[in-house]
């Protein structure tokens, strides 16, 4: 797995470098560390990058340093476009509300434009041992789970597969039983969601990852965030919003909503990045 770690010298990128290096030590075949020279933090950024590179080289991971000048989000995307990476690791300032509206979000820009899966480090995460994967019971989530399972195996992390049923019954002949069922019940009944969860658990088992499935009922975004909080997961995994054509304007970008609402690291997997 080729990984890109990024820093601009800010404390939030220092956390990202630290956790990114931990991931790289176990999962990377090679690492690029990108220094983005923004304002007056170039020196700090270089020092951080060199320290991380030295640390990784000491564990036998090949490392290359790169430097770009400009805005963090744009330069990370340019680097990711110039070199094919499996994973880009960035930090998040955690801007909220009006400030985010006015200044934008580096993480959103990178996840929206980089042609790679992106691990956004936010919150107080120290290690990535418990993954929560949001599964939408569609083909995209299969790619997400394949990618996440590789990472989970490398990090020896356990995985919880979460499917949220936000549906309401509208027709008389709708069977409401599935709308209140647990993961085990859905799997036992062989419902559409149950079949999907069962297949995904098999995929994870094939990668020798300890996994279980959970189904929650309610609004998708709220339930994912609630499960992450209640289960004290270290990492939230979701598929990136890559809906083509007009659908991209019609369908909600739930992965961006999750990224903004979560207070812990988020891995956004791009389907085309699965090898």
């Amino acid at each position, binding site marked *: 797995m080729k990984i890109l770690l990024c820093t601009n010298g800010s404390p939030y990128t220092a956390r990202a470098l630290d956790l990114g290096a931990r991931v790289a030590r176990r999962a990377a075949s090679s690492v690029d560390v990108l220094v983005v020279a923004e304002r007056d933090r170039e020196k700090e950024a270089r020092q951080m990058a060199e320290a991380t590179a030295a640390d990784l080289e000491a564990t036998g991971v090949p490392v290359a340093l790169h430097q770009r000048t400009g805005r963090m989000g744009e330069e990370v995307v340019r680097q990711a476009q110039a070199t094919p990476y499996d994973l880009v690791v960035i930090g998040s300032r955690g801007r909220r509300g009006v400030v985010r509206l006015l200044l934008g979000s580096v993480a959103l820009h990178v996840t929206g434009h980089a042609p790679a899966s992106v691990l956004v480090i936010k919150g107080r995460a120290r290690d990535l041992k418990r993954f929560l994967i949001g599964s939408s*019971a569609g083909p995209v989530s299969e790619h997400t789970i394949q990618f996440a399972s590789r990472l989970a195996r490398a990090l020896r992390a356990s995985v919880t597969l979460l499917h949220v049923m936000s549906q309401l*019954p*509208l027709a008389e*002949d709708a069977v409401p*039983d599935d709308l209140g069922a647990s993961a085990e019940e859905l799997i036992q009944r062989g419902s559409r969601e149950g079949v999907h969860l069962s297949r995904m658990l098999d995929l994870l088992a094939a990668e020798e990852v300890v996994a279980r499935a959970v189904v929650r009922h309610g*609004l*998708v975004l709220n339930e994912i965030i609630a499960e992450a909080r209640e289960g004290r997961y270290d990492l939230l995994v979701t598929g990136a919003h890559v809906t083509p054509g007009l659908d991209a304007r019609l369908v909600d970008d739930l992965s961006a909503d999750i990224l903004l609402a979560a207070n812990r690291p988020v891995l956004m997997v791009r389907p085309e990045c699965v090898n």
Partner: protein
Amino acid sequence: MHRLHRAFFAQMETDPRGEQQMGSQQGKWPKWKKPGLALSGFLLFILALGLMKEGAGGLAPLLRGRLEITNTADSMGFGWLMAYLILSGSPVAAAAVALLSADALSPLHAFTMITGSRLGASFIVLLVGFIYALRGHERWTALTAGVLSLLLTGSIQLLTLPMGLLILSRGWLNRLSLPALEKLAAGVNRGLEPLIGPLAAFLPGWVLFVVGVGLVTLSFRLFDQALPQVHLEKTNFGQVPRLVYRPEVMFLMGLVITLATMSVSISVGILVPLSARGYMRRENIIPYILGANISTLADTLVAAALLGDPRATTVVVTHMACAAIVSLPLVLLAYRPYERAVSDTLAWITSRHRNFALFLGVIFVVPVVLILL
């Protein structure tokens, strides 16, 4: 209310037998069937409005005297209970503008009666739900869409009500006038005179009014049957049951489809065949119903225009404008907290039979209390 009932329960599109029946009927009744039904419905609608307007004058003493509809709370409770009684909101809203046109109600009273009619419009769904709950039947959870619809309508109307009353009492939209429609209405009324005049000569006003309400209800049924079948399966909305669409997209979709069908129930019913299991994501249905709640008064607006009374048009436009003023910022600026609040309330109501029964009790008691105020 049969219209909403139809949307949630009687899905001909999902029933192969229903399709066969429709197909065979279409064979017998060629191309002109639907236009014929639409024209019959429209003529019946015009006649019903004429009868209601003619009969409404005779109802004024009954409303103000025996029923004591003297304040805006009374008229709201009256509209609410009327919608319960005839199991539909649209005929009650049409009756409100007819009563206004005949000076049996003031614009403020008509406004709150329309509000009441919207709130009473989910009754049948809840009634069936209550029966299921009493039987301890698991299927009662299948009726959560009815509760959701009422929660959405209630939350919007709660904000719309003071705004509308303020606008109407200050007369900010009083100059609203549609001369072309008023001329058309005058012509229609002249045309109806030979038909309604003799009836009015020997039938009491309240009888004319009741017959009018019956005919307007029948006309809505004819409209429902005349609507062309809309198939969204092959459009970009084919994944509505599964994917989460942007709230503003679903809001606009609900507004436009309801404007075309003039019924929330029909427009919701159009979504149902998209899901083989009859499920719909609540993230999609919430903004959809919010949009639909604005344009659902389109038929009342047509009624007001046909009555040729600018006051009636003003009341309906005020209602629609207030619903839009409340809903738009909600969808664009505060959608997530609103969606969460509605979803949490829905979860609480449907989590236990006792909560559901309590909710039903409240929606029964409130309109009665309003009338007693």
